């Protein structure tokens, strides 16, 4: 709910050519689901801890919050079962962000006297607005059985979806190394987009968590989106060592078996340590996301109507990389590197039963971001993020080598006038700018878009 697809990514999806693949792409557009931001005063109410106990600055977790999450939303002090709560306790949190924001894109196609889409103009729009509303319900059903249910409400669209819904059996056989989750969930990203500190249209997501090359119709490898599947997760008692493997349907979390019969796996492991510079517990880790997904649907009505769930022609993709959390007193760094690879069929938006164009090849890219936080105290945090994506091989030989490259920069601060165990409130200010090479309507110039945002972010 809180993060949106970058405008540049949306624009890049106009490059589809093959009919079947085009219809397929239209259908998979549906699977891009918005994501919710987790900050959970319901937990604070349950345990009486201030937000700052679990969050570096909410919604971003600190090491104690990460351990609490990994333990299945349990403090492991024998007070975790809901039987210890007053029956009136309701583990639900609402979050919304009324805001003023300004969005600007430097090259937008417009109609002119010469014809449709023959001109380019800068368009800026600004005004008061609302984010979507997050409804977060989670906690324990019993000792060592945890759950999360997140219906999401889009502002203005009057639609409700199920952003997340899972149950997990924790500490099977009394071992923290055996936890089994089933349902729709976020991948086990230690750097979590669900807990991203930035909220604006441009800055509210990690580009790399959703990146696909220009002309690529692989909508299934969205690390940032919640997925439907099963996850094993294990960790040491103090959570210093942690690992997980998730097997999910390759449908980007869309319920109803609307894609095809394909699966993906997300594997990650990390190790925490104390570098000795204070401020927190440092961590390094790696991930590998690999899978296959359909490239086209069977159709009805003379090729007009794709049949949901009939996706075939599976082709592969993978993403792999490393990440780190480093602390130096009040300063901390989130470091992330990703290498990506998509099948040439995805890269060229070609159905697997159609021939690839001459020069077709599997697109690859590399990307990284550095997000820095200055945590003056639990109630004031300054944020910056610099993110870069560089294509290393285009899907079609001869394509300019930097087509689709992204530079994204975000700056902001959050001030929490209150920090206690019942609710959260933050004054949020942010500016974000993204430049993507060659994605202006003329397919030559760069597209640059920016967001400026000021809002009150609250949950209770």
């Amino acid at each position, binding site marked *: 709910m809180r993060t949106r697809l970058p405008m540049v990514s949306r624009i890049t999806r106009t490059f589809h050519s093959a009919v079947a693949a085009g219809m397929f792409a239209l259908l998979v557009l549906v699977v891009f689901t918005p994501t919710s931001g987790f900050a959970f005063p319901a937990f604070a109410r349950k345990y*009486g801890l201030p937000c700052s106990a679990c969050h570096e600055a909410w919604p971003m977790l600190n090491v104690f919050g990460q351990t609490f999450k990994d333990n299945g939303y349990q403090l492991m*002090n*024998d007070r975790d079962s809901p039987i210890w709560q007053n029956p009136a306790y309701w583990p639900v949190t609402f979050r919304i962000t009324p805001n003023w924001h300004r969005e600007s894109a430097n090259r937008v196609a417009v109609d002119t006297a010469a014809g449709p889409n023959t001109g380019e103009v800068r368009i800026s729009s600004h005004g008061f607005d609302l984010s979507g509303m997050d409804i977060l319900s989670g906690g324990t059903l019993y000792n060592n059985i945890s759950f999360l249910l997140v219906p999401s409400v889009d502002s203005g669209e009057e639609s409700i979806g199920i952003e997340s819904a899972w149950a997990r059996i924790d500490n099977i056989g009394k071992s923290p190394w055996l936890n089994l989750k089933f349902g729709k969930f976020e991948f086990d990203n230690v750097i979590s987009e669900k807990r991203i500190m930035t909220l604006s249209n441009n800055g509210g997501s990690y580009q790399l968590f959703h990146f696909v090359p220009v002309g690529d119709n692989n909508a299934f490898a969205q690390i940032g989106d919640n997925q439907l599947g099963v996850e094993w997760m294990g960790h040491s008692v*103090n959570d210093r060592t942690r690992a997980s493997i998730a097997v999910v349907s390759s449908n980007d979390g869309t319920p109803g078996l609307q894609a095809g019969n394909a699966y993906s796996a997300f594997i990650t492991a990390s190790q925490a340590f104390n570098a000795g510079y*204070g401020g927190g517990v440092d961590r390094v880790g790696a991930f590998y996301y690999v899978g296959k997904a359909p490239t086209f649907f069977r159709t009805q009505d003379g090729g007009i109507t794709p049949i949901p769930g009939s996706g075939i022609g599976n082709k592969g993709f993978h993403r792999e990389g490393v990440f780190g959390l480093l602390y130096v007193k009040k300063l901390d760094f989130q470091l992330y590197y990703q290498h990506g690879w998509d099948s040439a069929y995805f890269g060229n938006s070609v159905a697997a039963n159609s021939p690839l164009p001459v020069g077709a090849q599997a697109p690859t890219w590399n990307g990284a971001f550095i997000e820095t936080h200055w945590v003056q105290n639990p109630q004031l945090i300054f944020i910056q993020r610099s993110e870069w994506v560089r294509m290393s091989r285009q899907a079609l030989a001869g394509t300019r080598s930097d087509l689709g490259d992204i530079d994204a920069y975000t700056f902001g601060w959050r001030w929490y006038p209150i920090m206690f*165990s019942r609710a959260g409130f933050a004054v949020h200010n942010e500016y974000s700018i993204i430049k993507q090479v060659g994605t202006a309507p003329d397919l030559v110039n760069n597209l640059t878009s920016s967001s400026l945002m000021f809002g009150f972010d609250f949950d209770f």
Partner: protein
Amino acid sequence: MRTISIKWLALVSAVAVFLLTAAASWGQETGDSEAQRLNMEAHVNNLSGRAANGAHLYKRFCVGCHGPLGDGEGENAQWIDPKPRNFTLAIFRCRSTPTGTLPTDKDLYDTVGRGLMNSNMPHWLPLTPQDRIDLVAYVKHFSPRWEKEKPGAAIEIPKEPEVTAERVKAGQGLFQKLECWKCHGAEGRGNGPSADTLTDDQNRPIKPFNFHDSEKFKCGSQDWELYKDFMTGLDGSPMPSFADNVKPDEAWDLVFYLRTLQPMKSKEKEIAKQLGLKPINPAAAPAQAPAGNPQQ
């Protein structure tokens, strides 16, 4: 008239000067004392903590329950049972030191890392050892007792003997003889006849431990930790020290018996099953009082 006015003026001036001086002196004393106490240190093995370094950690993690003054009156304290510790009194349950004495730094460090069962106090093991020792130093800074007194000497814990049927039975006998059942109940469910009358050191109602609740005890999960609880008492709670009333061997017997009550597989439980051990019958309790009054 003028004489009276001058006298009054002089008197008022003198009082004002006195009050101002006293206030300044008190302020300086308080400030000095606070500043001085922020120099408080804690040491465990090769770790050294400083209260000044623990201040921001306390504010982040602890203040909601224990309060900014460390008096256990955090904003959430009213909803918590048992109540958060009042650090200004420097009275702690989980210690290795005799009843009435200050705990060692390691006692506090272990408590921070382990948490307290059946309370809202979680284990803070995810924090770094340095953070935990800094927090211990900051906790100590709340009470002037740490400046005036030294921690007690840690009690000696003898080697744990082998569990036998005789020992389990002897432990049950002690459970009856020492009248543990009066608070903890005949079955150890924390529902003895005195349970509803118990209060802590601040006269707040407190419930006896229910051994059927958990595999762990208030101050740990190991046998030796339960042994320690008998011999040191849980200061601030009605649980006294039995150091003067039971011999070390008997304390181990009691440990073995209490293990039979917990919801877990154990050698003790197996023995109890083989013995067909039934809960004690309070009505059949020996008329004579225990060997002596336990230390409070």
